[in-house]
């Protein structure tokens, strides 16, 4: 608990100043922003992409995009909300960019054994889900998105998002039996 409070305090420490400095091109300030947020962004990217290598690429892409788009951040919304939205979009884009032609037909090669050793319970079984069902499940159940928002992000109908969510839920429940 004390550790969690410490992390929270660190994450809120001087953030507006860091953002202002980073906007002016201060890489040291941007590095501090990275250090505060990269674990959250990585978790999001890992759950969306389902693969360690892709999650690393997506996280890097997120922060490079953040650096480029930071001057557009006017502080109307919370930085964390803005970064979250940017990260989800970037993770989905990275997934699209790296997805090979054949991967649409063949399941992605995920080293499930390695993932099982490395990650917590839910993440061990999330990677076994089909891609679209996994993304919908992550965004809806873990990130609090609405089906309409997921539909817009993924270019699918909200009804399809609901169906994918129920499919994911059913598959995960079967894995836990």
């Amino acid at each position: 608990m004390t550790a969690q409070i410490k992390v929270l305090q660190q994450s809120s420490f001087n953030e507006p100043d860091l953002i202002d400095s980073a906007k002016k091109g201060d890489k040291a300030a941007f590095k501090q922003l990275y250090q505060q947020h990269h674990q959250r962004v990585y978790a999001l990217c890992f759950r969306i992409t389902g693969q360690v290598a892709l999650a690393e690429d997506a996280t890097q892409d997120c922060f490079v995009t953040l650096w480029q788009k930071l001057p557009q951040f006017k502080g109307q919304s919370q930085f964390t909300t803005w970064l979250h939205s940017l990260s989800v979009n970037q993770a989905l884009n990275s997934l699209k960019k790296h997805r090979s032609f054949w991967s649409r037909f063949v399941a992605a090669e995920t080293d499930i054994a390695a993932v099982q050793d490395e990650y917590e319970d839910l993440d061990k079984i999330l990677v076994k889900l089909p891609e679209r069902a996994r993304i919908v499940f992550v965004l809806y159940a873990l990130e609090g998105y609405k089906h309409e928002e997921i539909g817009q992000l993924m270019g699918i109908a909200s009804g399809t998002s609901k169906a994918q969510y129920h499919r994911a839920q059913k598959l995960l429940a079967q894995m836990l039996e």
Partner: protein
Amino acid sequence: MSHSEDKLEQLITKAPKTMSPERSLWSDIEKQLDKPEFIQPNHWRRVAVASVVFLVAVLSTVMWDRQQLVSIETAQVEVSPLLNTLNDIRTQHQQQVALLQQSQKVNWQATEKGLPLEKGIEQLRKAALQIFETLQKSPNDKQLWQLWLWTQQRELELLQQGQQLPAVTQHQGALI
């Protein structure tokens, strides 16, 4: 609720919000920070580039033809009625553009897809201006007229297509 569904609910509740990557990602990120922003080549960019190349090619041909004719023709310097028509059409087009911009519902120029489209429109406008200036000197050139009208029509089409681009929503999902 079955046992497995119950267990799934528990797993969702206790799922960590953060994860540590297996290796440090900062050094790779830092290397990419100095690179200029990468704009993905897309359909609109290709259309814009193709349009400009086409316009330059046609303009060059037309200009060359005109130079050949200059020595033979005695230019009619008097104000032609065509020049009035030229100016009328230009004014009409500018009004249409202004009307479209007034009825603009979303700031599509700020979107990722809007940027190349905006560049395409800008290039079309430059080309249209060049053609207009050439037409003022030689208003009887039929091919040049057709080209000028095409650039104006294309500009209106691109503006209309820009308005159909999706708007970017800012507030989605949870906090980090």
